[in-house]
């Protein structure tokens, strides 16, 4: 297959964000869209993530992005005309507090979320126990619960966007590595890959963990870094847990997939870099944490563990933006571990930006220039 040498837009990254951007652009009628992926689709953070979908955030921006994304996922199966199953299960997120500070922060979060129309409830211990009966009530002080949060299958969801985009004429090149971006007179001209060069006036950086490197190729310094986050999956058992259970203070998220396996992870502070290895330390810590918070789950056998990259931004909120210094260069990165669940909005907002349409929501808190010479006051705290 020879590679085409011209496109209207080249999207770098075949994860959920790249696919959603391609789909939205194609749906709006754009032609000659190319997606380039250096491995196979979902090989990066998308295929490695927990695939939880939550609206319970501490910043307005994240709440809005999540709320609108959930609205999309509720009708995604039909809208994308997908013949598989994206496995969207809205069984809620139960976020538990184990400290007084957390409990107070949760009051603020719930107030913000309710103001934005997200149906989160603050629960006392007894009410939390009704939702997940085997929670360790000796350490849980209170909880918040949003019944419309849930989880998806990251592989089929990405596949659904991919197939819908392909039907609309998008061209995909997998196992194709971008090696350079040609910029002339501060304008994007072409994307150079190991399989050939594609002339294009627009490049979208949806490279997940590698977004900073792609930015550099276009002369754009993006203030993000990548960090390995580990995760594991247990043997499958009969369904016993509907909601995702999270504790920020205990550093755990834990969910049961539709097929019965539990998926859980935590965010140990690793040095920035591209390592995605799995460690015995994670296994030890994860086992201790889950045994403390959800004792019966500690009895399960671990089937597999793996790592993946969080692309961290300074305020732990996404960067969905153009680049002032390089015309035609756009980016969707710095999701800080939450790019999967926000993908419908990532796709919509970037397509509007590229086509010069009126944005569906205010963009100032998503733009790259929000970090210029300013202190970060609007930090997202609800991150595992």
């Amino acid at each position, binding site marked *: 297959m020879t590679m085409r040498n011209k496109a209207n837009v080249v999207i770098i990254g075949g994860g959920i964000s790249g696919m959603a951007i391609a789909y939205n652009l194609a749906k709006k009628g754009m032609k000659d869209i190319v997606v380039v992926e250096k491995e196979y689709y979902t090989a990066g953070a998308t295929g490695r993530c927990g695939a939880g979908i939550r609206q319970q955030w501490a910043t307005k921006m994240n709440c809005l992005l999540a709320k609108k994304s959930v609205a999309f996922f509720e009708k995604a199966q039909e809208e994308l005309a997908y013949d598989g199953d994206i496995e969207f299960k809205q069984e809620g997120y139960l976020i538990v507090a184990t400290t007084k500070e957390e409990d107070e922060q949760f009051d603020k979060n719930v107030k913000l979320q309710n103001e934005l129309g997200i149906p989160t409830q603050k629960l006392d211990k007894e009410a939390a126990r009704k939702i997940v009966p085997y929670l360790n009530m000796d350490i849980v002080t209170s909880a918040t619960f949003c019944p419309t949060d849930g989880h998806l299958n990251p592989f089929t969801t990405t596949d659904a966007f991919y197939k819908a985009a392909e039907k609309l004429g998008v061209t995909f090149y997998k196992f194709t590595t971008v090696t350079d971006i040609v910029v002339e007179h501060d304008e994007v001209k072409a994307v150079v890959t190991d399989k050939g060069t594609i002339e294009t006036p627009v490049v979208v950086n949806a490279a997940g963990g590698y977004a900073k490197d792609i930015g550099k190729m276009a002369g754009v310094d993006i203030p993000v870094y990548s960090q390995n986050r580990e995760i594991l999956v247990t043997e499958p058992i009969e369904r016993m847990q509907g909601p995702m259970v999270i504790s920020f203070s205990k550093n755990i998220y834990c969910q049961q997939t539709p097929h019965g396996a539990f998926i859980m992870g935590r965010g140990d502070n690793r040095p920035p870099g591209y390592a995605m*290895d799995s460690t015995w330390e994670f296994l030890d810590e994860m086992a201790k944490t889950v045994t403390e918070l959800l004792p019966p789950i500690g009895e399960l056998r671990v089937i597999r563990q793996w790592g993946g990259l969080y692309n961290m931004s300074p305020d732990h909120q996404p960067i969905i933006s153009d680049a002032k210094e390089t015309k035609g260069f756009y980016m969707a990165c710095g999701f800080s571990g939450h790019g999967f669940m926000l993908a419908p909005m990532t796709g919509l907002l970037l397509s509007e930006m590229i086509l010069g349409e009126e944005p569906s929501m205010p963009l100032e808190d998503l733009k790259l220039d929000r970090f210029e010479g300013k202190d970060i006051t609007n930090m997202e705290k609800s991150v595992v």
Partner: protein
Amino acid sequence: MKNKEAVIIGAGPAGLKAAKQLLEAGAHVTIIDRNKKLGGQLVKQTHKFFGSEKQYASFRGIDILEILVQGLKPFEDRLEILNETSVVGLYKDKVVACVKHDNFFKIKAKSIIMATGASEKHLPFENNDLPGIYAAGAVQTLMNEYGVKPGDKVLMVGSGNIGLIVSYQLLQAGVDVVALVEAAPQISGYLVHASKIKRLGVDILMQTSIKRAIGKDQVEQVEIWELDEVWQGIPGTERVLGVDTVCISVGLAPLTELLMQIGADVEYIRELGGNVPRIDFRYETSIKGVYACGDVVGIEEASSAMVEGAMAGIHAAHDLGYTVEDESRKLKVLQEELKFLRSGPHAAKVRAGYTKLEVKT
């Protein structure tokens, strides 16, 4: 976490030979194996070996096992055997995660010798999960280790040495081998084994494979069909055979998962059975202090696994700072033996595989 010096994963012929060399040089050795008995696949190999006299040709596998285990006896004070122990994780700081009788524990090793061997491949066909469908090695375990007859009427799929030898052993146990089917146009194992079962009346069908298994709760019949020159089934050639057991013997795949987890460079080499670690001429993988030998570096036979194990053991001992008596001469002799074992026409595939690996390494 326990600190150990040399940790050998897998107590088959390669692992036991590596242990011997390390112990002779003075190292402390821990052997981990998931089975109760040491010896890997030797425990069920009641047939006599071919190959080189130095690798115990004309001895039976079970007797070779006894020789190898006896060879470790003088060093018992420096040898620890963790049997019935599965290695469930291998991490880049050389931490070996183990499970024994549902207890999880970790060992930190100075050097690791991977002698994990291989697993049997399966075939995709309709109903390939019906009870009564076995891998040939599993049938050998049932019969030769536990004395259990797997069934009464068997279809053997595959004419490699395992398929041929297990067919013979089934006949010895009074089991009717209804037919042996082979997808290729020629026998892939030793002709002498094939002739033996042919003389005993087994129908050997070339360019033929299993299409599906038939049965409700277990195998009752199988449908076989002929294959064309591009390995596709030819409609109209189907035949139904009445059997209660299907034995799949279609090759082995190196058990490389742990090496992948630790991050060793792995290469797909078809001739060696699949994904194999890149090793240098010292049997060291791309990770310093982690060695690999035996079937995990390429599917061969127990005899070559023993030679490779000895060489890996010598290099590991050297790297740990021990003096191996007569090291260069020993290595040279072992090198020659390996060359001899790989010299026949049956080793052409293996030779091609190692040439590829060498080019890529």
